[in-house]
């Protein structure tokens, strides 16, 4: 037998043996050991190749070719074995890692914003998007800002209707808890003028207000948002435009609005604003007392006496103003039946209704 034939036989034997070894390896590390044994630097194939030197130069290329072929073959076999084994092990691992997806997820305790806060934030955001600036004012107010400057002189019947909380005397003038956010109108205008500005002035003023009234439908503390704008030729039509836009934006649907003439000392003309009932879409239900309309806020054109009280010329400028009760808006939007729930602060309620 020629030298080549012997080597060929050897290579064949190695190939068959290696293939069997690869196939029978029980895990990846054994497989790798087998690879080293046959294909490694000191492996069986290398051993065979060492014998190439003994061959005549003309035989060397032939046996080189054969060796390479065997090596390629074994490499391929190894890779296939490895892939098969990885697959098999992978399946085992996947099986071992199987979970019950119906087990409850890990819950980290989360917080909630109070529904009234949500209402305040949403309402305020609508107005800032419409170009109104945010203003704040004190809750402990003097009678000038809460009443007089708003055209409610002491003998005025409306003043008695305000259910005012008075504070025990501690300053040189009588102080009250503000009964509405309207005094912010006065304060914002005063500040604005003091800074040397001239209208237009457009303000949204959210805040807490107080009325000495406590029953099923009244809370002694609640929240209002005051909105007003002063400019040349501001009209009732502008007021209606803003009302329509904001009410539709807040309730998330196009709502019909209705203005009914009413009376507030600080506006002239004054109007109560109704919206088409958000619960029955105006068809008539218990909440709207079958009328299809729900009263949501009071509004009007700022009374010239109010503008005068801060020194704005009512011949040149006019304005609109309105104030709305935040709790009422939230109750309507979220279908909350009882005002008192807001101040009970039951976390089950807050979790369900807050965000």
């Amino acid at each position: 037998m020629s030298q080549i034939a012997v080597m060929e036989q050897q290579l064949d034997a190695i190939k068959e043996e290696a293939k069997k070894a690869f196939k029978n390896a029980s895990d990846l590390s054994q497989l790798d050991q087998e690879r080293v044994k046959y294909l490694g630097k000191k492996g069986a194939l290398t051993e065979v190749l060492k014998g190439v030197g003994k061959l005549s130069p003309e035989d060397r290329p032939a046996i080189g070719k054969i060796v390479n072929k065997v090596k390629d073959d074994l490499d391929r076999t190894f890779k296939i074995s490895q892939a098969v084994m990885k697959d098999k092990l992978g399946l085992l691992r996947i099986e071992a890692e199987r979970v019950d997806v119906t087990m409850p997820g890990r819950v980290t305790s989360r917080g909630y914003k109070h529904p009234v806060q949500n209402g305040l934030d949403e309402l305020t955001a609508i107005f800032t998007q419409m170009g109104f600036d945010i203003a704040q004012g004190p809750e402990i107010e003097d009678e000038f800002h809460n009443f007089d400057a708003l055209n409610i002189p002491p003998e005025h019947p409306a003043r008695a209707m305000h259910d005012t909380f008075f504070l025990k005397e501690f300053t040189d003038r009588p102080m009250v808890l503000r009964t509405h956010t309207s005094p912010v109108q006065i304060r914002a205008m005063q500040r604005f003028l003091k800074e040397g500005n001239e209208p237009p002035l457009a303000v949204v003023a959210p805040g807490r207000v107080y009325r000495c009234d406590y029953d099923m439908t009244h809370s002694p503390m609640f929240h209002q948002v005051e909105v007003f704008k002063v400019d040349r030729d501001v009209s009732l039509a502008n007021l209606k435009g803003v009302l329509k836009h904001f009410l539709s934006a807040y309730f998330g649907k196009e709502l019909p609005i209705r203005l009914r003439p009413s009376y507030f000392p600080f506006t002239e003309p004054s109007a109560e604003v109704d919206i088409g009932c958000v619960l029955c879409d105006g068809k008539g239900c218990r909440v709207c007392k079958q009328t299809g309309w729900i009263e949501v806020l009071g509004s009007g054109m700022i009374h010239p006496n109010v503008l005068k009280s801060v020194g704005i010329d009512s011949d040149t400028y006019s304005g609109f103003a309105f104030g709305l009760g935040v709790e009422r808006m939230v109750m309507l939007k979220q279908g909350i039946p009882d005002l008192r729930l807001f101040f009970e602060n039951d976390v089950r309620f807050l979790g369900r209704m807050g965000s």
Partner: protein
Amino acid sequence: MKLPLSWLKSHVALTDDVATIATHLVRLGHEVEGVEEPRSAVKGVRVGHIIEKKPHPDADKLSLLKVEIGDKQPLTIVCGASNMGEGDKVPVATIGTTLPNGLVIKQGKIRGETSFGMCCSEVELGLADESAGLLILPGDAPVGAEVGELLGLEEAVFDLSITPNRGDCMSVRGLARDLAADSGLELADISIDPVPADSSIALPHISIAAVDGCPLYLGRRIEGVKVSDSPAWIQARLIAAGQRPVNGVVDVLNMIMLDLGQPMHAFDTDSLNGAVSIRITSGGESFEALDGRKLTLPEGDLVVADESAVIALAGIMGSEPSGVTGTTVNIMLESAFFKPAKVSETRRHHGMVSEASMRFERGVDPAMVAVAMEQATTLILETFGGRAGAVSVSGSAGGINAKEPLTFDFSRIEKRLGIEVPESTDAVLSRMGFGVSRSQGKMRVSIPGHRHDVSIPEDISEEYARVIGFDAVPECLPPLATTKPAAVDHSIDYAVADGFVQAISYAFISEAEQRMFSPDDGNDILLENPISEAMAVMRRSGWPGLLGIARHNMNRQQPGVMLVEQGRSYEKNGDGHRENNIMAWLMCGEIQSDQWHTTVRSADFFDMKGAVESWLASNGLTARFMANDDVQGLQAGQSADLFIGKSVVGRIGKVDAAIADHYDIDASVFVAEINLDVLPEGKKAKFQPLPEFPGVERDLVFLFDRTDRVEAILQAVRKAGGNLLTDARVFDRYVGQGVPDGKVSLGVRFTLQDAKRTLTQKDSDGVSAAIVAAMEKIFNAPLRG
């Protein structure tokens, strides 16, 4: 105010249906709170005549009545009321009647006696919310007649809310005027021939000393009156309008007030002494009001007085002794104009409200003063007999509420309303009593005496708006006006992100709650008229409110709560006061719930601290926590002040067990509060490139004294660590076996990093050695094996 449709129609011949009239009323500014539709519900309730009244044999409080209702046999009725007597006429609900409250009348036995019907009060007939017994019907009511028809209950009644500016519409006449003007229908003529005076009756002596309070006062004597119940039609009107009949004369005057808006009063002249004057009190006089209240009058009340006593608080209420009763024979009628401001002032002195004062305060129509006097006289003479003297007139109607006509550019109205106003609308205003003329864009408007609410062009714009209807005004967005970016406050969002539930509690608490966390140093702000003791003082801390809320929730099976509130605290500050914007937190009970993968854990100081640190970090701030054993209401050893720079911005700690106990909270309660007004501006995050080279973390465990403060330890670690050290923190704390008493084992983890290279073993060994040496030197703290 209740407006019966038939009464309204006696002033204006409206032909529209009830719903349409209601719509017009609303558009004109008279809110319709409800319409009581024809009350078929009282069908079957008939006029009964009590012919016999005996006590129930078996029950002290019941009576056994025999009641004639026009059938063959009188009915036997068991009745629980006590205000009726034999001969009275009362409403009887017969068997089968369904009352407005849904009650169906059946034959029934009450304590052994069979009752064949029920005698009714105003409540059962749906006429009132309360009553003092059976409704006693007029003596001339026909027996057996349907009570609903008799009382005019078959018709619609509008329940109106009249705004306080429209005193002129607190009468059927005033509302009729608005509706007539609006519809173009004629307003009925109510002029009346003056009653001829009986010259044998002396003119009353009347003088007005307080012209500022009373510019016009009419008085007239009527003698020989036989006061009896008023006739059925008057009673029916009063009941339909929601008033209870009193006696003949008073009923007539009340009806005229409701009809014309002019309140009147009648004095028993036999009880008067000498001349009558309208004057201002100088203080100290006593007065017994018709409602039974005994008052001592202060200085400045507007009153009507005779020569010995005050006989009426003008326009508010008469005195008891001078009042008209069933036995009165001679009376003096009063019809006057009392000025709104003065009536309001006097009324407020005594906290009184009456139908009369409500009208005078809002302003009555000076033109009605004389009309009402003639109508009342006519009706009283017709109904109760008697002879009337001449009217004594003091002052005059001219000049009352007289205003200069308004002149202005008509464009002012159109600009304010944002709509064109057709000239045809002027006629409606004219029918309302305004004098309107337009020429070349100029407008001239004279204001009628009954419109106390109108004085400037804007008031006229409202008149146009309600005549045209607000619906006709288009919706038109104004141009945007803003200048500044909206400053949004995220304080609550940050706390909510840390797992807190936002609460909103009342700004007023009880004084006892205030004392838990605030000293009694005179800086409380107290309410003059609190709802209750529990809401008597403005809070100086958010904690009492949160404790109350924690109790509410813990009592309802919550294992733990995490609450946060943003609001204000209030306190006196020298001569003035301060409102602080605050954030307040509370944690108590289990804050980590029982889940399959975790165990329950209750809140402790460091949960609270972590929450506050996290909130501060969200605002770009860090604070130092300095132990303070003297925070009122917090437990010594677990309380601290929060410092930023040199100022205290807040407090944190464990609530005293006694306070938690007071709130029935059976868990440790931790609280914190920050004054937002003293917080400095937070650091704005600046861009920094992320590190290119990996950092190295090392842990070292030392044995410290228990008194060593972590703040000082970490400071020393940072110093010893030098420039490479980017972070150092405590990762482990252990006390117990293997750690001697008075010692604590603390594990310190620090991170080293260099922006320009990867660190070597040598670097970290060097830093570790420096830290070990520093701990040894500064704290005498050995490295733990």
